[in-house]
C-alpha cells in the first residue's frame, strides 16, 4: 500500500512556526539580541496608544447600548496587534482594515469622529483625514486582501518605497480571496503585508472547525511567501516583526504573511452574545494572564518607568479625546439626501437625476 506522507507533517507545523515573543506575559524582555528595541519612550507610546483605543472601544459599546450609534464590532483584547502594526507604517503606506480594525486605523491617524460616524451609519466616516490612504473597512470577509495586493502592485510600478498592509481574521483564510490575493502578490512580488489577527473565533466558529491546520502561517508556504507566527498580545513582537516585513517589502522582496495569535474578549458585534458559543471563563482567564495592556504595564513597572500620575493622565486624556469625538459625531450635520445621488457616478446618469428630483420633491427640498 502506498503511504501518502503528510499526515503527521501538518501537526508539526506548530513547531515549524513557533510563536515569536519579545515581551513575556509577566512583562519581562526575552530577547538579548533585540534588547535595544526596549526603550522607555517606545513602551510608553505603546501603552498610551493601547489605552486610547481600548477606551474608545468601551465607549463605543456604551454608545451602542444607549442607541447613540449602530451595531458595533469591538476589538478589546487585540490592542497589541492593532497598535503594534499601525505604528510601523509610514505616512504614505496603504491600510486595508476590516470592521474590527479601527483600533489600527485610529492609531495610524484616522479621525475618531469619522470612525464614530461610520458606526453611526454615515459614509462620511469612511473619508480618512490628511490624505491618509486608509480604505473603508472590509465588510465581506477577505475581499480587501486582493485590493491590498493591487494597491501595492501600483506602488511598485510607480517606483515608490510605499507598502500596503491588509488586516484580516482567521476565518478569512478559508475564503478564496485570501488565497487569490496571496498568490497574486507572490507572483508579482508586491510590497504588501498580510497581517492576520488570529483571534480564534469567526463569530461563533472556533479555529478547530475553521481549518484542519494548526497554524495560519503555514498557508503562506503554498505561495512561497515568507511567514511567521507571533504573539499578537505582545505589542513589541508585533511592532518588530511587522517592521521587518515592511523593510523586506520596501526593499523589493515582496509580501509577508504574519499570523498574530490573539483573542477578542467580547462579542463579534454588539448584536451577539459570546456566551452562547464559548465559555467566557476562557476570556476572563486570558484577560488576567495575557492582556496586552497589563503586560506593558508590568514592563513599565519592572523597568522603573511606571508613574501613577502619568498613567492617570494618559487615561484622562483618552477619555477627553473620545468625549470630544463623540460630541463632534453628534453635532455632525444631518444627512443631506441629495448627496446620495451625487456619488454613485462622477457624472450623474439620467435615471439618478430623475430619482434625485423625485426624492427631493417628496421631501420638499429645493436642490
Amino acid at each position, binding site marked *: 500500500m502506498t503511504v501518502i506522507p503528510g499526515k503527521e507533517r501538518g501537526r508539526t507545523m506548530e513547531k515549524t512556526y513557533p510563536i515569536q515573543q519579545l515581551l513575556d506575559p509577566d512583562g519581562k524582555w526575552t530577547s538579548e539580541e533585540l534588547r535595544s528595541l526596549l526603550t522607555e519612550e517606545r513602551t510608553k507610546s505603546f501603552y498610551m496608544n493601547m489605552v486610547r483605543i481600548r477606551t474608545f472601544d468601551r465607549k463605543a459599546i456604551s454608545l451602542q447600548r444607549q442607541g447613540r450609534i449602530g451595531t458595533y464590532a469591538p476589538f478589546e483584547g487585540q490592542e497589541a496587534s492593532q497598535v503594534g502594526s499601525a505604528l510601523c507604517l509610514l505616512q504614505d503606506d*496603504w491600510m486595508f482594515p476590516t470592521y474590527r480594525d479601527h483600533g489600527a486605523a485610529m492609531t495610524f491617524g484616522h479621525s475618531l469622529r469619522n470612525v464614530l460616524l461610520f458606526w453611526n451609519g454615515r*459614509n*462620511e466616516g*469612511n*473619508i*480618512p483625514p490628511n490624505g491618509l*490612504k486608509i*480604505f*473603508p473597512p472590509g*465588510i*465581506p470577509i477577505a*475581499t480587501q*486582501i*486582493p*485590493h*491590498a*495586493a*493591487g*494597491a*501595492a*502592485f*501600483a*506602488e511598485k*510600478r*510607480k517606483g515608490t518605497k510605499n507598502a*500596503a498592509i491588509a488586516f484580516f481574521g482567521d476565518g478569512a483564510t478559508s475564503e*478564496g*480571496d485570501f*488565497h*487569490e*490575493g496571496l*498568490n*497574486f502578490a507572490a*507572483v508579482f512580488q508586491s510590497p504588501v503585508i498580510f497581517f492576520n489577527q488570529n483571534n480564534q473565533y469567526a463569530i461563533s466558529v472556533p479555529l478547530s472547525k475553521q481549518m484542519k491546520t494548526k497554524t495560519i502561517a503555514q498557508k503562506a508556504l503554498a505561495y512561497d511567501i515568507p511567514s511567521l507566527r507571533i504573539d499578537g498580545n505582545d505589542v513589541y513582537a508585533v511592532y518588530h516583526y511587522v517592521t521587518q516585513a515592511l523593510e523586506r517589502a520596501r526593499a523589493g522582496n515582496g509580501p509577508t504573511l504574519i499570523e498574530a495569535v490573539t483573542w477578542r474578549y467580547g462579542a463579534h458585534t454588539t448584536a451577539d452574545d459570546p456566551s452562547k458559543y464559548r465559555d467566557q471563563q476562557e476570556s476572563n482567564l486570558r484577560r488576567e494572564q495575557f492582556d496586552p495592556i497589563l503586560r506593558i504595564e508590568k514592563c513599565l513597572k519592572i523597568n522603573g518607568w511606571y508613574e501613577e500620575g502619568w498613567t492617570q493622565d494618559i487615561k484622562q486624556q483618552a477619555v477627553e479625546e473620545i468625549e470630544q469625538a463623540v460630541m463632534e459625531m453628534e453635532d455632525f450635520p444631518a444627512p443631506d439626501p441629495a*448627496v*446620495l445621488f*451625487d*456619488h*454613485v*457616478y*462622477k*457624472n450623474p*446618469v*439620467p*435615471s439618478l437625476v430623475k430619482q434625485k428630483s423625485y426624492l427631493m420633491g417628496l421631501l420638499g427640498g429645493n436642490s
Partner: protein
Amino acid sequence: MKSSVERKPLTLAGAINEALSVMLEEDERVLLLGEDIGQNGGVFRVTEGLKDAFGEDRVIDTPLSEAGFVGAAIGMAANGLKPVVEIQFLGFIYPAYEQLMTHAVRLRSRTMGHFTVPLVIRAPYGAGVRAPEIHCDSTESIFTHMPGLKVVCPSSPYDAKGLMIAAIEDPDPVLFLEPMRQYRSSAEEVPEGKYTVEIGKGKTMLEGEDVTIIAWGAMVSVSMKAAESLLQENVSCEVIDLRTLSPIDEDLIASSVQKTGRTVIVQESHPQSSVANDVLSIINDTSFLYQKAPAAKVSGFDMPVPYFGYEDFYLPTPERVVQAVMDVVNF
C-alpha cells in the same frame, strides 16, 4: 487626414486591439491584465501584439484567478492606475461578482468620491459560435443591476474602438461586453488614432416609420437582416443599437417609439429580469399613449444557455424577429 495610404478595414476584434494600443501609447497609467492576454494575445487575439509593443509590465498575464485579479485591479485603480481587465468569457466572471458588486461599483459612494475605481472589465459574451458550455452566456442584466457600473456593448468596429477609448477614460468602472459572434463577422473603415463614442448614447442604424426594433450586441445584425426582409413586405423598420445598456439612452428610445408607435426588443439573454424589461419600462414611462400595439420581446429562453448542439433553437433569428414585427403590425 493623416496619410493617403489606404488603411485596411478593421474587424471588431481589430478595432478593440487598436483602441487598447492607442490608450497604452497615450497614458502610461493604462495596463492590461487577464488570462492568456500577453504571450498568447488573448484567446480571441484581441490583445495580439500588445505585449511585444508595450512590454510585459503593461500587458500582464495573470494567474487563473478572476476574483483575485479583479480585486487587485480595484486596488490598482484606487491607487492611480487604469487597469483594463480581460475576463476570458463572460461565463467565467462569476467568481469576480463579489469584487464587482461589493467593491468596484460602490467604493465611490462608500467614500463619497474620496476613493474611485476607474476600471474597465472586458468580456467576450454571447452564443452562436459553437463554443463549449458556459462560454456563451449573455447575462448582461446581472451587471446592469449594479448601481455604479456602466455596461457597454458595441456591435460594430467603429463603435467598439470609440467606446473602448471612452471606457478607459471614464472615471467609473465599465463592463465592456464584446459580442464574440461579431469579432470577425465583418470589417469596416475605422479612423486612425484617438476618437470616442459617448457612453450612454444609442445609435439609429436604420430609419423607419412603422416599427422600432431595439437591439444590442450580436442581435443588431439579426435585427438588420429582419428589417431588410420586412422591407419587401412594405414594413418600414427603425433599428436602434442601444450600444450602452447602463445607463440606457432613454431619449432615443422614447423619440423612436413615439414616432413609430410599435416596438420589438431583441435580445439573446433570458427574458426574465432582462434589459429588455428595462426598455419596456422606459417605454411605459415615456411613451405609453403613443403605442398602437403592445411592445414585444424576442429573447432567448429562461433556461441556461444550451450546449451548442441546441443553440440555434435558443438564439433569436431574423425569422423570429420578422414574426414578432408582423404580430405587432397586425395587432
